[in-house]
């Protein structure tokens, strides 16, 4: 098959669609890593959890509450799921992660790895691994748009736009506002920030909550595209880790830009040599590590 411009553009567009998921997930990881120094292995599981909150909210919560006609709408789910999962994250941070700060950071990785297994195991037990469809896609986002080179589903276009808004919004808050400056200072020198009267432990808790809420937000966005399945997160998380390593761990802008770029690179690879598409990110990672061990946007430690 010859490589046409149309083909390349279509795959790159789909790549961008995947890329925004990488970006939003790796952004959450970067935010958490920046302040807590923890690689949140449960990120994929929490992304999955977000999708399930949306799914169950639509199908089951009404009957459960004795209101069979109540369905949590897609728009409501976009708000509710991050809140629910964020709260869940806050509980995790308060009850478990907090106990580990005085030890090696690796314990945080191991703890969240265990949590990921638990969450995924529970959902595998109650739900079909092959996934359940999420049917609550709003009417206004159905159908396709003609982009000239391809017919692109409106919904996917919406996902790209809203994700970019959320990503760059987060970047703005952290890098350009006073709240963000506390956060960044807390990363550098928690004692000093404490001396200024900032409640650092609370800040850490909320940061973790926000990071995982981002994951849940991505989960809701993903629900109408992919079927909602207990393993949707574990398939994604390793790639996202690679994105984080390439971007430079903890770098906010790095994670966003790298996520988007790598999604598109992946899409482009599908045109050139499809079997390599799942490996290409890891190959890039090796090259980046050889040339710039701290990642593209990372600072040398």
């Amino acid at each position: 098959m010859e490589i046409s411009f149309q083909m390349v553009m279509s795959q790159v567009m789909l790549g961008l669609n995947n890329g925004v998921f990488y970006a939003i997930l790796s952004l959450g990881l970067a935010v958490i890593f920046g302040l807590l120094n923890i690689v949140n292995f449960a990120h994929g599981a929490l992304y999955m959890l977000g999708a399930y909150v949306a799914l169950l909210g639509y199908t089951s919560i009404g009957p459960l509450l004795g209101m069979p006609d109540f369905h949590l709408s897609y728009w409501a789910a976009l708000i509710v799921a991050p809140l629910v999962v964020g709260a869940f994250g806050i509980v995790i941070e308060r009850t478990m992660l907090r106990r580990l700060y005085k030890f090696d950071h690796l314990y945080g990785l191991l703890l969240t790895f265990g949590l990921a297994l638990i969450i995924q195991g529970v959902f595998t037990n109650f739900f079909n691994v092959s996934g359940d469809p999420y049917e609550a896609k709003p009417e206004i986002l159905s159908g396709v748009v003609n982009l000239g080179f391809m017919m692109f589903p409106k919904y996917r276009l919406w996902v790209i736009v809203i994700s970019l808004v959320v990503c760059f919004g987060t970047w703005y808050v952290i890098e350009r506002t006073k709240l963000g400056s506390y956060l960044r200072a807390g990363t550098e020198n928690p004692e000093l920030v404490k001396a200024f009267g900032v409640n650092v432990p609370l800040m850490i808790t909320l940061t973790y909550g926000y990071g995982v809420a981002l994951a849940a937000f991505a989960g809701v966005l993903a629900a109408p595209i992919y079927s909602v399945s207990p393993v949707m997160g574990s398939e994604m998380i390793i790639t996202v880790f690679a994105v984080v390593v390439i971007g430079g761990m903890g770098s906010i802008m790095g994670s966003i830009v790298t996520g988007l770029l790598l999604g598109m690179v992946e899409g482009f690879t599908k045109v050139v040599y499809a079997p390599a598409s799942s490996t290409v990110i890891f190959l890039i990672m090796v090259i980046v590590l050889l040339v710039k061990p701290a990642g593209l946007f990372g600072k040398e430690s």
Partner: protein
Amino acid sequence: MKNLFSKAALSVAVLAMTSGMAGAAGKGISDGVVKIGVLTDMSGVYSTLGGKGTQVAVEMAVKDFGGKVLGKPIQVIGADHQNKADIASAKAREWIDNEKVDMITGLLNSGCALAVQKLASDKKKITMNTGAASTDLTNKACTPYGIHYVYDTYALGKVTAEAVVPSGGKSWYFITADYAFGHSLEANTTKFVTKLGGKVLGSVRHPLSTADFSSYLLQAQSSGAQIIGLANAGGDTTNAIKQAREFGIDKKGQRLVGLLIFDTDIKSLGLNVAQGMQFTSGFYWDRDAATRAFAKRFYAIHKAMPTMDQAGAYSATMNYLKAVKAAGTDDSDAVMAKLKSMNISDFFAVNGKIRADGRMVHDMYLMEVKKPSESKGEWDLLKIVKTVPASDAFMPLSESTCSLVSK
């Protein structure tokens, strides 16, 4: 300590001799029980079409048989192989070595099926495969103790291609699951498409349980093929079909053909999405009075209508037990001889016969998904368009590469 050990060794040796003698006699039921193992995907992509339902069907068969054969109890055990060949073969090995399982059925997923069939055969145990599709099971990987019961990629490819190609589906592009089953299905279908004057423009392979088919679909779309053949199954097939709708691919004159579809897939797609699709099946619950009677009883337990895998597991178990009874022993060689000589005829299999290569041949059906307006109930999903007789549906023995077939 040493004393204890030598005593144990002695008693073990005595046991060995006695059981050796029992084996030499070749009669009766070994270890006083007939054990049937249901090893299949109980939690993964294929669990709705097989899974616990397969075990339910096997248990029904045992109960209907009376729970005993030759005066000895029949026991059913089940396990989940998670679509992983390593778990499947480890479990099968343990079952045969430790649990003394006599027959293993289910075995969805060709990768798992091939591993287990080889292992069981090395240990002279029977496998009656109701779930997997690869024709390798009765060709280059055939064994004296392996039976392939329900369907295979040859029958699926042949019946579907013969229906689709003449009705204007000349050029094909495949989206193929990247393991033994998908490869086999693509290869077999390709053979018939070309034979009937069609052309295959290309194919793309995806890993088992893929969430996003969009890029594969896009490649299929830009190939310009009239037919996009889905050489995959279960959740993969339904995902691909749904996403094809999302991108409006089916609206532009390209047609999706699922090469292996189960009732449960149609159920999850909904008639709105699936209507008009044609595919091949070895069983449909609403075919006649006998199938409906079985389906009704199955539904009462499992809350879903039986798929061909599940109905096939019932039939396989029933006929296995009949063969044990007729042979007067659960010795694998004797039972296999009986199975291969008897006619298989029940609600599941019409004109059934187990051939030398282990292939159970029976009538197959070309199905079509009903329009929503035609459907009268939750499970009223399909109609039988054509019945393909056993002799036409499956690979003739003359083409088989199985070493057991004398030529």
